[in-house]
């Protein structure tokens, strides 16, 4: 792919960043995003922040349950 054909604006690169991280875009689009990132510092920042948000979401997936709810649901299972 030539550089002109691979060039995309920041808006397009940013739009595709999460899908890029998910590896959910076509190889040609992936190449375009990577080419854009190779010279655009701001979009590299966007990419790093997208990674941080994903980590933030994953770390928010706690598995907690209040005691009273746990007891009520345990009783419910016993009575099934």
């Amino acid at each position, binding site marked *: 792919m030539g550089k002109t054909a691979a060039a995309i604006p920041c808006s397009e690169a940013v739009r595709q960043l999460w899908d890029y991280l998910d590896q959910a875009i076509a190889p040609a689009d992936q190449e375009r995003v990577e080419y854009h990132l190779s010279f655009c510092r*701001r979009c590299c920042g966007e990419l790093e922040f997208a990674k941080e948000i994903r980590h933030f979401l994953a770390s928010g997936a706690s*598995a907690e349950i209040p005691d009273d709810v746990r007891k009520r649901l345990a009783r419910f299972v016993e009575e099934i």
Partner: protein
Amino acid sequence: MREIDARDRTKEAFQELVRTELPGLYSLARRLVRDGAEDLVQETLLQGYRAFGQLQDDGAGGRWLKTILVNEFRDQLRKRARSIEEVAAGDLEDFSLFRTLMDDDPLPYSDSLHTDFLDAFGREDLREVLMRIPEIYRAPLVLRYMDGFSTKEIARLTDAPLGTILARLHRGRNLFERAMWEYSEETRMLMRDRDG
């Protein structure tokens, strides 16, 4: 007599599974619905107990129960089909939390503005932000990025085409970033952090 023993053993095994998986199930339910998380878990447990004999792999019990919960959530959503809000894509595409933070600079003394912004959010803040997103966009976001389901699994569980799920994930991420920014503004949480 033998039949009763078998039923007791099944119930015991199911109770054991539930004891381990209850926190994860309840937390997922709370991420999917604003109200009625406990009801959603109860319905899941009922369905799970009825189908418990079909569970082949004991080690997959947690994922299996979560799948039942998502199915139940999908059915509830269908019953309330009229209240589903589709968001127009055009209005959302240009929002970037990264750029908004750079432009607005709400933490002028921070050397790591973006990280500090995220660090200001506690678990309940995160839940409040998620609850601001319409369910059809929230569910794929939660299932993909918090509970680790693949996009194909989400499409199968929610009975929607893969392309629809990818589009909803895209809008969901946009809505999530926007909701984080608006929430931080409305609650003045960054101000609170700055004031100590």
